[in-house]
């Protein structure tokens, strides 16, 4: 697993994709930070991260589209699947690599919180940590979904487009819930929405149920990815 993680992580930076992803992410983060916080004298780190979750939705498909599709196209899966490693460790190694790149990019934004303090603003630590934990959990679940979608196709573009559609749907689940008449249905839809689980984190409230939601999304889609690969060997 470590070998796959290392190779995949490096792979992001031997191709333009890693740079494009990190570059755009940091550009957007900087823009939001400047416009939303610096220029308007606001120390609300929650609003900054809420904007960043949108950026995440737009960038994750690019980030995950080639994870498994490209390998299958180039028949590289033949090397991985005939090596003495389990499919789970292949999939999880890739997941971790994608996650690490994103976490590294998010790590740069720690600078912004330092700037907050340097400028005399004092956002609460609970809120800062809540936002980072929530953001990373959300990013993890998006990457797991993207990874799963990239296991379904050999075409990177298809993987990206389908991921966009999926994320767009997740994005509007909150709106769908608010338009649903039946309160129980609305509750279910609301529960499925990744944004609704982010709300508490954004305020610095650590709710186990929210963390469980994101972690089970990750587990579910990693598991499904393993199943897809496993299934393909048998068909």
């Amino acid at each position, binding site marked *: 697993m470590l070998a796959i993680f*290392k190779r995949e992580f490096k792979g992001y930076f031997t191709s333009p994709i890693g740079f494009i992803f990190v570059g755009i992410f940091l550009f957007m983060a900087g823009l939001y930070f400047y416009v939303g916080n610096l220029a308007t004298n606001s120390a609300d780190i929650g609003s900054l991260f809420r904007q960043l979750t949108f950026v995440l939705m737009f960038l994750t498909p690019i980030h995950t589209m080639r994870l498994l599709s490209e390998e299958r196209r180039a028949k590289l899966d033949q*090397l991985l699947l*005939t090596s003495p490693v389990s499919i789970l460790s292949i999939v999880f190694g890739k997941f971790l690599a994608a996650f690490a790149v994103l976490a590294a990019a998010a790590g740069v934004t720690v600078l912004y919180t330092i700037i907050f303090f340097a400028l005399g603003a004092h956002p609460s630590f609970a809120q800062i940590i809540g936002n980072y934990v929530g953001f990373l959990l959300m990013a993890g679940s998006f990457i797991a979904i993207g990874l799963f979608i990239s296991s379904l196709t050999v075409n990177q573009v298809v993987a990206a487009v389908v991921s966009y559609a999926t994320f767009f749907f997740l994005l509007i689940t909150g709106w769908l819930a608010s338009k649903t008449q039946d309160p129980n249905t609305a509750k279910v839809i609301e529960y499925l929405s990744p944004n609704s689980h982010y709300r508490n984190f954004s305020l610095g409230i650590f709710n186990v149920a929210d963390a469980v939601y994101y972690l089970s999304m990750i587990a579910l889609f990693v598991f499904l990815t393993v199943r897809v690969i496993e299934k393909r060997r*048998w068909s």
Partner: protein
Amino acid sequence: MIEIKNLVKRYGNKAAVDNLSFTVPKGEILGFLGPNGAGKTTTMNILTGYIASTSGTATIAGYDILEQPIEAKKKIGYLPEQPPLYMDMTVQEYLQFVFELKKTSGNKRKAIDNVLELARIGDVKGRIIKNLSKGYRQRVGLAQALIGSPEVLVLDEPTVGLDPKQIIEIRNVIKDLGKEHTIILSTHILPEVSAICERVIIINKGKIAAIDTPDNLAKRMSHDSRLSVRIVGDQQQVLQTLRNVEGVKHVHTDSMKEPSAYDYIVEAEKDFDIRQPLFFALAQGGMPILHMKNFDMSLEDIFMQLTADGSKALRPEKKKAIAQEKTELEPTEDTIDAEQATKNGGEEDASDL
């Protein structure tokens, strides 16, 4: 070392591999022959655990590939048809990655230096794989399979894309490896099999058509001797003369290769060496022989015989294509012999004059 039992792989209704069974003892080099779509690659993919069989078992060193995949895969080095290379890595990085991926024990640097030398790619180890030629990529693929010195090597057409000199080199490498490793290799090229394999399996439509040593196979197949002779002269007259030679069973014209010279396929009765009588008969009639060579049995010939139930006559254009492909691929011993024969023939002609 390798045991395959009643292996079946079905894609929908079509059986790519149909009830295949064979064993490979430790230290043997087994050749896997068959036309495209015969099921060679499928069998290899099952054996290495890339795909699962519909039914039947494949066992490597006592480990079932489906039941104990990790243990079984540790014993295997696999070079697929298309070498699985990360184009954005250097050769050395790639081999390091494979070393770690395969959880190989021992000294990493030593293991990598070793395979670099075996595959003779030490001079490109710092280069990015994307920029390598096909032949080098093939060799990097081979190096990858050799990492950790696995007990079983599965090589899917290892010499494809190499130039003749590299082919001979790689064959020698494989031969050397065969002393310590058990090897299965697939190929289209019969001379390759006779050059390195101890045993051959011919497979067609997913079924085994024959298993034997290459010598036995060739012997079994070439029950009558056929010659290809290029002769100058009037076609009818030549045919007439040829048919009158004792021991000749059948003659037919192949094609015109040079102005006023035709190639003829002469089939002799069993155990008849007709070359000398043929020479004298034609010399008497004033029809010079430009060259004469044994019609070698190509894989396709053997294949036709094994599968098409003894129908020996190949269509001439197919034959030609095959012969051409062969000479393009490599100068085989047979063609070298033939060249010598022509040379000798020429000298004889000269002394006649």
